[in-house]
Every structure is written in C-alpha cells, then in structure tokens.
C-alpha cells in the first residue's frame, strides 16, 4: 500500500524539482520572504495558503523570474535559477488577472509561447490544437478574449501557460474571479489536467477549501515564512500551531495550563486487549490508543535512518514538521457522528488511554483530558484546538471523557449541518457542529437551551500557546 501512495517528500532518495535554500526577499526595509527553505517534488500539486500580504505572490514571482531573491538560492532540478531571466526559464505562470493578450485570438494567445521558440508551423499548430482540446476551447479558437466568458478566459490562460509543457506551472489565485460553482468545477478540471500532463503545479490561494481540495501538500504561510507543510488531512487534523489550526477551517481554542497525566499503564500494553474487554460497537476501539505507527504510510527503516541521521541535522526545523501524523482514530467518534443528538453509548472512564495531558482551563471546572497531548508540555500554557465537528451536543449529560456544560447562544443553520454556538461555564464560546440528519422541526435543541458538549480524550490537538 505504501508504494501506491504519492509521497515523494517522505522518500529521502527523491530528488526535488524545486529547492528553496534560505531564500530571503526584501523590498527596501520590508522583508516579504524570510529565510525560507522548502523542497517541492516532481508531479506535486503544491498549494501556498496564507492571508493576504504574507508573500505568496512574491514567492511565485521569484520562481517565474520577475523578482530576484535578496539572499539564498532557488534551484530548479539542482540548477540555481536565481538570476535567469523569466524568458529563459522552463517555468510558466498563469496570472491572477489571466493577462490574455487582448489583440490576439484565443488561438494566437496559446500559440504565442510556441512561436517564440521558432518551432516549425505544423508542430505549433498540432500543439495548439491539443491544448484547445484539453481545455475544451476548440469552438472558440478564433475569438478574441473579450468575446468569451470569464470561465473560458480562465481556460485560455491555463492552455497558454501549459502549451510549452513547462516543468513547473505556477498558478496565482487562478480561480479568484470565478463564482463558486464554476470554481469547484474548475478545481477538478485542474486536478485532472495536472494528472494528465504530469506537470508540477504550485497554486496560490487564500481559500483554504480550494487548497485542501486540489493539493497534494499544503504550505501555510505567515509573514514570509512557511509555518507548516503537510498533506491536507494532516494540516487539518494535526496542525502544528495555533496559527495553522485557526487559519484552516473552524476551530475552538480553549486556553489553559497543561499537567502531565500519570502513565499507570505503559502505552505498549494498551495496544493489547483490555483486561475485561467490553462488547465494543466498533472492533477497532481497543486498538484506538496510541498506535501511531499504523496510522500513516511510513518510509522503510533505511529511509527513516537516512532521514534522521542525515537530512534532519542539515535541514533542521523544516523537516521536523514532515513526520507529523494524523492522530489515531478514536472509536467513540463513529457512533456520535451517526446520531449526534442522542446520548451516544459512551465509553467507560477506563477506556480513556493513559498518559498525555490534563488541561486546567477554568477555576472550578474539571480538567480537560487530552490523552494525545505531549507530556513534555507539562506546566506550560497551552491551547486545545478542537474542531466543531468533533464535539457532540446533547441535552443530557453523556458518558464521555470530556463534557462541558453550556447554554446555546446561537444556531447557524447551514442546510446539511448546523453550527451551535454554546457559551460554556467560564464564559468561553464554543462551536459544535452536528449533521442535520433529521428534519428541522424535529430537532430538540434550540436557543437558550442548557446543553452538554462532549468529546473524546483524543479529539483535540494540544498546542503550545503563542
């Protein structure tokens, strides 16, 4: 199974297509990119995600050759391209504004790059035809850009940038100007084209859903640095900082002080069946404790050794992010998802895996148990990042490792799901999401209701408070 997964970043033998080595870009006193080191591999669909002004476009423009790095190197296939002018790079860019040549037809726009290479006429013609077919624009070949619609223009821009078969295609917020439906269609089209052509794509977006949809890896940026690079699921489930957790999707942040939990039973024995196993609703429940080695495809032992001994010491902190893995699946999530508003058949307290942390978050409230927390955070100020969909909401107190009592302040009905804004004791606002499996009239939780929120001991991610 591990072979079929596309994850060159875990393979120490893989040669990166793009290497940023300590790249810094300054505009006057302003540092737009700050000592950035990152590898991007062939055939990747790499998404740069971050708030406006964090340096995404600057990064792209350095790859395209419109800006030169102030410090550091950018290597393409091992060759430093820092000072190669844009017209001499095997890199093409699809511009945010599309930048179609308004006085040229769709055909001539696509042919523009090929003609600059002085290729024979029939070869150019064949290639343009191929691109027109790929982007379904055959009918519009003779039209001018102002004679076609926004979605078609966007496809012309894509066809034009793909025509020269670049090693690397840069897409700067390519779908920003499209409406939501067309956007989603185009995202799948992009993924399809990327797969067909085998080109490496780097896409800039400030839309986290878009990044999660299309990308093989997502890099979250903040003020000229990459904060975390990982596959979309890891970014979502195991953010490495409050910034990332907060930036990607909805999240509840509960601040408190960590306290290490006693590890009565050493974790090794937990993987074995419990002394008195319950008839479990899901068979994997007992194995749900820390068994992270099975959770994600791993490089072989040689690879891991190479990584630990050689690469980590050299590339330091940026590589440390990469082995982050998803937290192990937890059984109690399954029944709760199916019937979120009923009291789930809750696990008994002894099901809570030992170890991890307890978080004192409010005077006079029971500490929150986070069995997946890093005991090294003992005594530190921490933040528990908890996704709204990982919280159960019920009117009676469920049997769960963590329960919080609160009052419903607001309900956002989104059709398929509802988000409940609950003020818990201590005044913290917490959002809980539940699927609307029943018709609206039959749901029993409403404004001002006293409710219980519940979540498992591994539902949240414990992060150091910044």
């Amino acid at each position: 199974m591990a072979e079929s997964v596309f994850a060159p970043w875990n393979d120490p033998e893989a040669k990166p297509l793009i290497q940023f080595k300590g790249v810094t870009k300054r505009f006057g006193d302003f540092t737009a990119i700050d000592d950035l080191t990152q590898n991007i591999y062939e055939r990747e669909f790499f998404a740069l995600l971050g708030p406006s002004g964090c340096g995404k476009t600057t990064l792209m423009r350095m790859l395209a050759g419109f800006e030169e790095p102030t410090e550091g190197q950018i290597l393409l296939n091992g060759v430093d391209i820092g000072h190669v002018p844009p017209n001499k790079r095997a890199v093409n860019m699809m511009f945010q504004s599309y930048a179609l040549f308004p006085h040229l037809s769709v055909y001539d726009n696509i042919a523009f790059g090929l003609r600059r290479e002085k290729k024979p006429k029939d070869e150019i013609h064949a290639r343009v035809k191929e691109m027109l077919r790929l982007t379904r624009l055959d009918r519009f070949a003779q039209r001018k850009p102002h004679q076609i619609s926004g979605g078609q223009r966007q496809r012309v821009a894509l066809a034009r940038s793909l025509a020269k078969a670049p090693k690397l295609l840069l897409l700067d917020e390519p779908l920003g100007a499209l409406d939501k439906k067309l956007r989603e269609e185009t995202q799948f089209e992009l993924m399809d084209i990327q797969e067909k052509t085998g080109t490496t794509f780097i896409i800039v977006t400030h839309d986290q859903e878009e990044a999660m949809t299309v990308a093989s890896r997502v890099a979250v940026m903040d003020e000229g640095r990459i904060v975390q690079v990982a596959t979309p699921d890891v970014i979502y489930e195991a953010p490495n900082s409050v910034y990332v957790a907060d930036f990607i999707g909805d999240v509840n942040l509960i601040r408190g002080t960590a306290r290490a939990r006693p590890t009565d039973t050493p974790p090794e024995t937990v993987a074995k069946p419990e002394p008195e196993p319950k008839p479990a609703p899901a068979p994997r429940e007992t194995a749900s404790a820390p068994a992270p080695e099975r959770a994600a495809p791993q490089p072989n032992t040689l690879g891991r050794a190479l990584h630990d001994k050689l690469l980590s010491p050299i590339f330091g902190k940026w590589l440390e992010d990469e082995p982050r893995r998803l937290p192990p699946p937890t059984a109690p999530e399954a029944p709760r998802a199916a019937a979120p508003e009923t009291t789930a058949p809750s696990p008994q307290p002894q099901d809570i895996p030992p170890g991890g942390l307890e978080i004192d978050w409010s005077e006079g409230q029971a500490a929150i148990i986070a069995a997946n927390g890093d005991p090294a955070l003992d005594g530190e100020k921490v933040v528990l990042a908890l996704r709204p969909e990982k919280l159960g909401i019920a009117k009676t107190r469920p049997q769960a490792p963590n329960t919080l009592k609160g009052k419903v302040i607001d309900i956002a009905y989104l059709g398929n799901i509802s988000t409940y804004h609950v003020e818990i004791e201590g005044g913290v606002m917490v959002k809980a999401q539940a699927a609307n499996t029943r018709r609206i009239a039959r749901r029993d939780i409403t404004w001002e209701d006293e409710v219980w929120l519940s979540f498992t001991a591994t539902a949240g991610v414990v992060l150091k408070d910044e």
Partner: protein
Amino acid sequence: MRRFSWFNATSLTLGFAFLYLPMILLVVYSFNESRLVTVWAGFSTKWYGELLQNEEFLDAAWVTLKVAFFSSTIATVLGTMAAYVMIRAGRFPGRTLFSGMIYAPLVMPEVITGLSLLLLFIGIGLDRGVLTVVLAHTTFSMCYVSVVVSSRLSTFDQALEEAALDLGASPFESFTLITLPIIAPAVISGWLLAFTLSLDDLVIASFTTGPGATTLPIKVFSAVRLGVSPEINALSTLLISIVTVGVITASLVSKRAAVQRRREEQAAQRTA
C-alpha cells in the same frame, strides 16, 4: 427628460455663438463675389479657383505638410519612448525631476521655446530651413505625445508584458508584439495631436524658419498683414472642412467599434 428652461437655452446659444460665429462669418465670406471682406456682393466660388492657382500658397501648404509629417513622426517615436521609460523605470533618484522636465515645454511660452531654439541653431551653425522647423516642432510636440501615451500606459496591465516574457519573448518582442499594438490608439492620437500642433504653429516656426521654408501659417499671417483677402477665407474654409470631416469620421468609427465590442462581450456572457 429635463424640462425646457430659458436660462439653459440662452447659455447654450451664447456659448455656441461665441465659439462658432467667427468661423461661420469666415466661411460665408469665402463665397463672397466681392474682394472686400465686409461687403456681401453675391455668391461665388471664384476665390477657391484662385487659391488653387496661387503657387505661393500651394508651396507653403506642401512645406507645412512635410514639416508636420516628419516632426510628428519623430516626436511620436521619442515621446512614446520617453513615456514608456517614465512609466516602467520604476523609482530612481531624480524621477520626479525627469518627468517634470518632460512636461515643462507644455507650459513654456512659445516665444521662449522659439527663441532658445533659434539661438541653438545659430550657435551650432545650422542653416535655417525645413530641417530646423522640423527639429523645432519635434521638440515642442514630443511632450504632448508623451503625455497622451503615458496616460494610456499608466492603465496598461503590466502583467501582459510579464506574461509575454514568461512565455519566452525577449523584452523587445514583448514591447513590439504586445505593448505597442495595445497602446497603438494612444500612439496614433499622439501622432495626430503632434501633426495638428505642427500644422498651425506660427510662433516657433517664425523663429526657426529660413528661406524656402515658409509654412502656411506664416504665409497666411504675412498675407493678412497686407489686407485680408477672400483667398485666405477660402483656404481657411478648406482647412475647417478637412478638420471637421476628420473629427466626425474618427468619432463615428470609434463609436461603432465600442458598440460592436459591447455587443460581443454581452454575447460572450450569454454563451457562458
């Protein structure tokens, strides 16, 4: 519809009368039978016939056209280059000074421009004639071209040039294949502006002209000093008609193009 108002009607009439009455008089009297410009003696086109016989006027017209053509062409090339550099060069020390200096001739009194050019030509020993008038006209009309072109360039999407470079075009190719065709209308307007400025310039041409290089404005001016002749009225009427036809055609053409373009854009949205 706004209601009719005597105030509006009066201001409109007065304004147009102010603008066009002198010209209408001139046109009417160009068809006067009599040589006296202030006495109407019946309709005739004879002054047009005489005008076409008048070698001096025809020569002057030919010189004027030559001067206007060459000076506006050179001014367009230089003015476009100046505008391009000013817009594209980004920031460098003394940029404001430079761009200010490009536009200074716009407000410089013509007498001073003419005088300084005259001194220059004398200083470097250049014989005055068609060449010096061309140079002088280039000098002062270049800044007009540069104003027109740079206002177009300032709204030009620089991403288009970057896209051309990105697709492998050299900077020169990206200018000639992409930028120039797109800003062509502004360049042509700049050329036309320079051409008309040169056509009707009297002051600078008087300073810098020499034997055998009498332009039409100079000719008309000196002829009028001996008395206004109906021939000059006829000549002026011809010039007015040429300009009128030119302006009307140009605006019709550009309006039709705009309408056509809007229709195509709407069609594109519908088929989307």
